[in-house]
């Protein structure tokens, strides 16, 4: 029982990451009809926004400490962040400690800008091109982006911790009346879940309750008709691309404390996010979110030791098994529309 509750929690948490990425991917696909293989790269760039901000905040000048020795036996060069000079050590440490949440503020405009630049500079030339071309060009872009990141940040993961206030974990078990320590969950992962819920809610509310959103939704249904109404849909779609990039980027920023970011984290998520989107149904925002959580929960269940004893290797293939079953029983995924991406 406790194990199941725990894995549902896990699943929801994993699912929130999947759902966020799939949501952005679906926004781009649904509005622009573009299959964006560079979406994982946007997620990765988001994460590196956090890394970069952390680096900027810890920009240091060097103070030679004669009392300590470095590995070659020379006096140690101690790095002192400029931040200490401005705010004093205590306040400086707090700011550095909170660098991940602070990066959200940085990441939103940066990611919007990157998204808009990408759409205007590259993607818009590919609206009328076959999906295979879109895949190839965005895949090329993804490689270029990740190689650039690798060039500047190296291949190793870079630790980017959460604020120390969020270290440790919350004991659900105790709160629910079970024995302590049975159901614990890290605070930051709970924050991530809440954050994902807010973002997903905000995107849906934006599409549902604003005129802008209504036009975009109409455009997703039937682009030509909306165009005929004399509405300049292209500009709105550009903004939607920026928005989708920002969603992916934010998912990346908040993910950094969970797993240290590295340059290929986007590729790791790419296949998975496509599986999520397709299981949800191409072009369906609700489907993307639903499939994200569904696959997250199922993946968590499949990774339980008890399950693996019966079906060894299930954890290796669970996502694909689910994808195959869903696609064979529901031709267009869970909530897909007819005629989307079927040719």
């Amino acid at each position, binding site marked *: 029982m406790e194990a199941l509750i725990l894995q549902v929690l896990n699943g929801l948490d994993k699912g929130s990451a999947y759902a966020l990425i799939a949501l952005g991917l679906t926004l781009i696909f649904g509005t622009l009809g573009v299959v964006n293989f560079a979406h994982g790269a946007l997620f990765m760039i988001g994460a590196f926004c956090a890394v970069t901000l952390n680096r900027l905040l810890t920009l240091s000048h060097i103070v030679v400490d004669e009392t300590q020795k470095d590995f070659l036996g020379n006096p140690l060069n101690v790095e002192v962040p400029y931040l200490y000079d401005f705010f004093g050590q205590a306040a400086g440490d707090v700011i550095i400690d909170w660098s991940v949440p602070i990066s959200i503020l940085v990441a939103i405009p940066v990611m919007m800008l990157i998204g808009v630049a990408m759409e205007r500079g590259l993607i818009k030339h590919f609206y009328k091109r076959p*999906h295979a071309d879109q895949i190839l060009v965005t895949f*090329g872009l993804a490689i270029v982006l990740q190689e650039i990141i690798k060039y500047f940040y190296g291949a190793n993961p870079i630790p980017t911790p959460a604020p120390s206030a969020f270290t440790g974990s919350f004991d659900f078990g105790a709160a629910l009346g079970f024995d302590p320590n049975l159901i614990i969950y890290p605070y930051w992962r709970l924050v991530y879940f809440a954050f994902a819920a807010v973002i997903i809610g905000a995107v849906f509310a934006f599409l549902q309750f604003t005129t802008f959103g209504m036009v975009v939704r109409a455009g997703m249904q039937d682009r030509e008709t909306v165009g005929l109404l004399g509405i300049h849909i292209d500009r709105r779609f550009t903004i939607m691309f920026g928005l989708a990039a920002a969603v992916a980027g934010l998912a990346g920023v908040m993910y950094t404390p969970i797993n240290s970011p590295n340059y290929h984290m986007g590729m790791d998520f790419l296949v998975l996010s496509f599986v999520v989107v397709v299981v949800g149904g191409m072009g369906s925002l609700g489907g993307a979110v639903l499939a994200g959580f569904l696959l997250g929960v199922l993946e968590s269940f499949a990774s339980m030791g008890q399950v693996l004893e019966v079906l060894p290797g299930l954890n290796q293939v669970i996502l694909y098994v689910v994808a195959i079953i869903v696609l064979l029983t529901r031709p267009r995924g869970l909530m897909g529309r007819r005629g989307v991406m079927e*040719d």
Partner: protein
Amino acid sequence: MLSLNARDFQLLLFVAAITMLAPIFLNPFPVDSSLAQFNGGYPDLMQRFVIFGIFAIGFNILFGLTGYLSFGHAAFLGAGSYAAIWMMKLLTMNIIPAIILSIIVAGLFSLAVGFISLRRSGIYFSILTLAFAQMSYSLAYSVLTPITGGETGLQPKLNDPRILDGELAAGETARANLFGLEMGSSYDLAVGGWVFTFNVGYYIAAICMLLAFYASIRIFRSPFGLMLRAVKSNQNRLGYTGVSTRPYTLAAFVISGMYAGVAGGLMVAMDTQAGAERMFWTASGEVVLMTILGGAGTLIGPVLGAGMIKYMENIISKINTTILEAWFAWAPDGLQDVLVSVIYPFVGKGWHLTLGLVFMLVVIFLPGGLMEGFEKIGGLFSRKKGKNSDSVAGSASPAAAE
């Protein structure tokens, strides 16, 4: 000739000439020159050119003709490789049974995967094939380790049974061969400063590729091929024309799976090793990229694409700072440093960056792949009627002349 029209026959002859002479023109630079780095005429790379050429030709029969974008073809290549290596371990190091079994296994595997995946089309089909391939990879890497060797893969071992081969003499290693002719054997021709390597394995693989290429031309030009192109053009309409499309697409899928099997078997024949990574999704993606880069739906494009990607992977990635410094030794110190530091990010460990840029540039400026580029260049020199000479759209033109 060979039941081909004049144009296709010329193309076949051209490809045959190129593959047979590849050891010569792939080594355009003298061995001791600083540009020898760009020579691609050594056995391993030449073998890879033709093997991946076969893989891409087969993939093109599915994707180029029917438009079904499989993201899981590497699984068939991998299955073929495992079949071949087991044949070599258990039966004989002769490559014939190994390749035959790899074709059969890949064919059966693709039949099963295709039968299920082709129930859907478009991206749903792509994801289904991807799912099967990723499952194959994951399982081969982990729980199927007893069969696949997992992380370390399979290689021939001294204590393998090899029923048909005799006991190895002391100190002898089991080598892949064709009735005693070893794949690793080479004949080197030194001419002036140049050395050209004629490798047995390469020529066997090249002959396989020519056969594969010939078969692919025949398929392109057959009524069966027309059906497949009609599937790509308007599958719905084809149903109203009286065609049950599933058997056709399935046949195309299995044929391309068998091509992948040939490639997988040849890979093992040339280099006796089979590992799970060759089933990873990036390997499937690679053949997609090869095909599109070269020109999907064209006869020769996929081979070009395969050659280009493998060349970059094997040549560009080996350029290091020492080599760059040697190249620009003529330049004054400051300029040398600038040149090296400008080029360095794109070569050696940065070869992926170059690859990504090439993809983008080709797709942006040459939607039809490299073949379109060649046609454009060709168009500058001749003003012949009709555009794409090699593309399928042009395939009926000789008929009109009759």
